[in-house]
Each structure stands twice: as structure tokens, then as C-alpha cells.
């Protein structure tokens, strides 16, 4: 599904952030990317999610090179990817309206969006809090909402950046179980975390990013 080869990325000052990354993610796979705060995990997810343009190397998603895609095709690709950004902050609306906004903005009709909202909230166990102001949610429910937003449009690839940040151990386990539950069928999931990996996260593979390089793929 995703094939990364010879991927390099440097800052404007010439500091290498990613150095010769080779990676393969199969359909339906759950992969964990471990690494310190400055190891380049978020950048790698940004590149895989077509949010950042690659400088050197190749990223093939569904057999298409992201670097060579036109603007419209990049947008179409983004719509097939669900992203949970690091330090996710919900919109100052209800839980329901957060998800509904995204779906309506992506072109879904009201009824269609309503159906998908309920499905995403049910999957993430947020259905009871759907009328709650999202800013008043507990830490774990915020993470759940972020994941609900990432999966609501039925993506093929889920990129989750630091979902366990600021959570208690039992909450981390709960989120890990949620991710495992979602990892059925065609959905591929990449989870980036500083670690340690919580119990219950049964990843098919774990890789470690050290100074922008993959160790132990």
C-alpha cells in the first residue's frame, strides 16, 4: 500500500531530519513508529499523509508517486487518509458538530454526514457525549474525538501522531485497544509514539526512528 524508498528531508538550514528512509506498509497493517521528540516521526507522517511535499526520494501510495502528483490528485489522496495530529485540539463545538463539520466540508450531504457521524462516534465510544462541548471533554475522550475525526470519512490509511500523550496508563491501554479494534479489513494504521508502547497495542511491526534513520524495521 505504501512504499517509501530513499526518502531524505532537510530543514532550510540544511539539518538532516530524515535520512535514507526505506519503509513498506501493507494494506490492513498496524505499524508503530517509535522515536524521540526530534527523531522526525511527525515529519514522516506528514510526508506519508501528503501534507508535506517530499524533497528527495520516493513515496508510493497505491502505486502512485506522491511527489509527482498534481495538486488535485494530492487533494484526492488526502481525502483517503485520516490524520490524528499531535496535540490535537477540537473545534469549540459539540462532539457531534466537530465530526459533522468535517464531513459536510468534504462534500457530504446532511443525512449522509449524520450517518457517518454516528458510525464514527459509535466506533470510538463517544456516542453518549455527542452533545457535549468538545473543549470540556476529558483527555481520553479528546483523543477518541480526534480518532473519530480521522476515521469518519472511511479512509484507507490512518496516521496517528502521539495519541498516548498526557494519558494515564489505563487510558493508554484503552486507546491502544481502540486502535486494534479499528485495524480490521482494509484500514492500515501507522501510530507514531515516543513510547513505551502501551499494553494491548498489538502491532504487526514496530520500527524505531533514530536521528532520522530507521533502525530495526
Amino acid at each position, binding site marked *: 500500500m505504501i512504499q517509501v524508498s530513499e526518502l531524505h528531508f532537510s530543514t532550510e538550514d540544511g539539518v538532516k531530519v530524515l535520512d535514507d528512509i526505506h519503509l513498506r506498509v501493507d494494506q490492513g497493517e498496524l505499524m508503530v513508529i517509535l522515536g524521540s521528540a526530534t527523531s522526525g516521526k*511527525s515529519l514522516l507522517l*506528514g510526508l506519508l499523509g501528503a*501534507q*508535506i511535499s517530499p524533497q528527495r526520494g520516493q513515496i508510493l501510495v497505491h502505486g502512485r508517486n506522491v511527489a509527482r502528483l498534481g*495538486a*488535485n490528485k494530492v*487533494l*484526492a*489522496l*488526502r*481525502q483517503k487518509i485520516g*490524520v490524528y*495530529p*499531535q*496535540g490535537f*485540539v*477540537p*473545534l*469549540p463545538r459539540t462532539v457531534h458538530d466537530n465530526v459533522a*463539520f*468535517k464531513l*459536510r*466540508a*468534504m*462534500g457530504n450531504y446532511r443525512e449522509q454526514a449524520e450517518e457517518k457521524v454516528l458510525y464514527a462516534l459509535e466506533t470510538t465510544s463517544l456516542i453518549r457525549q455527542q452533545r457535549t462541548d468538545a473543549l470540556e471533554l476529558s483527555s481520553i475522550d479528546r483523543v477518541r474525538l480526534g480518532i473519530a*475525526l480521522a476515521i469518519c*470519512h472511511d479512509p484507507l490509511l490512518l496516521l496517528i501522531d502521539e495519541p498516548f500523550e498526557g494519558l494515564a496508563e489505563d487510558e493508554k491501554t484503552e486507546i491502544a485497544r481502540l486502535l486494534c479494534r479499528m485495524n480490521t479489513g482494509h484500514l492500515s494504521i501507522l501510530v507514531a509514539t515516543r513510547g513505551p508502547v502501551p499494553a494491548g497495542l498489538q502491532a504487526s511491526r514496530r520500527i524505531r526512528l533514530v536521528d532520522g534513520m530507521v533502525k530495526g524495521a
Partner: protein
Amino acid sequence: MRWFLFRELLGAVRTKSAIYFVLSGFLLFLFLASIACFFMIIPGDAAPSTEGQPIEEIQVFLSPRLSSATIDEWFLEWREREDVAALRFQFAQELDEAASGGVFVVTPSDPAMAAALASELAAIEGVTNVVEISTEREVEGPIVSLLVRISLLVLLVATIVASLFCSRRGYRELLATFSGEVRMLRLSGVSERALISLIIALGVLIGLLSGLLLLAVLYLFHQIALSSAAFSLLGGLASGLRILGVGMLMLALGTVLGGLAGLLGASLLHRREFDALP
């Protein structure tokens, strides 16, 4: 989708941004009104008028039956008068081919007293006609309109600059409350073009409303001008066709300028705080 997002954008307008947008729209209205005034002022090249102007000379036409001795006597007598500065004799044909006899051309020493002198001379037996020649002076209209034009020009520049400034401040406030949505839209694969067109659409709406307000005000003044002479300087207000033409032109200009203000607001989207990823 666009309509949904536009409603969401309007929903993010808070008191502060609303004040800036209203101010921006009002200033744009003033700008358009200043331009409209240019079309409403009566042209300054109106025909020069002598009405109410001081008398420069008096032409006294004499009867052809008068003897040359009488004419000589009058000449000597009038020349000595204190209210006569200069006196010359001409044949009437020099001034009017159909006339006969002679003409005394009198230059009064005091133009203010010239009218009294003219009526005194007209009363003399043997004088057939008296013509008062006044100095031609341009009416004050063009001078006033020049001042008005300069003021309008200053107002024009000041209002458009202030309007753009207020509009940008309004957008800054609005986008600050809409930044989470912008980030989510970018993350979801909504195109930059769609985002920019949203912002521009708001500017176009403000411009359109300003233009419509001006159209309504012009129509109101047109109705007043038809029943009152109070708008003599803005004579164009009396013409319905001109009102309609100028109004439509200003509506189009307002829409374009609103769009430009929107484009200026859209440039704020390139700020780092709106990036999809932190």
C-alpha cells in the same frame, strides 16, 4: 459544500470582527459615494454671465435729428461731470449697421453709480437708447466645484485606504476564531482555492452591500432633488438615467473592491498558525 462553509465562516464572525467589517463597508460606501459625486456635479464650463456684474461702459445713442452744435455742447458738458471717467463719440453704424446718428460711449468713474448715470442720460430728450455694457465674469460654479473635486479626491484616497485597513483587521479577527476550522479543512483535503474563494466571497458580499446602499441613497436623493432646488451643485441627481447608470457602475466597482479586500484577507491564510500540521 461552498455554501455550507460560507455559512460556517459567517457564523465565526464575532463582535470585534463585525465592527471592523461594518466600518470597512461604510468606508467603502463613502469611497463609492465620493466617486458618484464626480458624476453628479454640474459641468464647470457653464456660459459666462453678466447678470449682477458692474457696468463697464454706457452707450448713449443719439437722435440723428440732433444738430452738431448740440452734440458738441453735450460732449463738453458731460466730459466735465464727476461721474464720467471718459467720453468718446462714435457713429452709430460702427456699433450697429442698421442704426443712424451718433453714440456717446461713456465710461463711468464709479461702476456702482453707473446705473443711476445711465438712467439720467436716458431721460435726456434727444437720446434714443441707452445700452449698459457690463464686465463679463465667469460664474462661481466652476471655482466651487474645483474645491469640491479636490476634497472628494482626498476623501477618495482616505476612505479606500481606511476601508482596506479595517477589512484586513476584520479578517485577522475572523480567521483567529476560524483557525481550527481552517486547519481541519486543510487536513481533510479541501483545496486552497476553496478556502481563498470563501474569504473573497465575504469581501464581495461587503462590497455588494456597500454598492446597494449607495444605490438606495442615490435614489433617495434623486427623489428629493426632483422636488427641491437644494442640490443645485449636484445637478446630476435630477437625471434618473444618470442615477441608474452611476448606481450600477458603483455597484460593480464596490463588488470588485470588496473582492480585492477579500484577496487581501486571504493572504493571511499563509500564516503559520493556519498550517494543517503543527
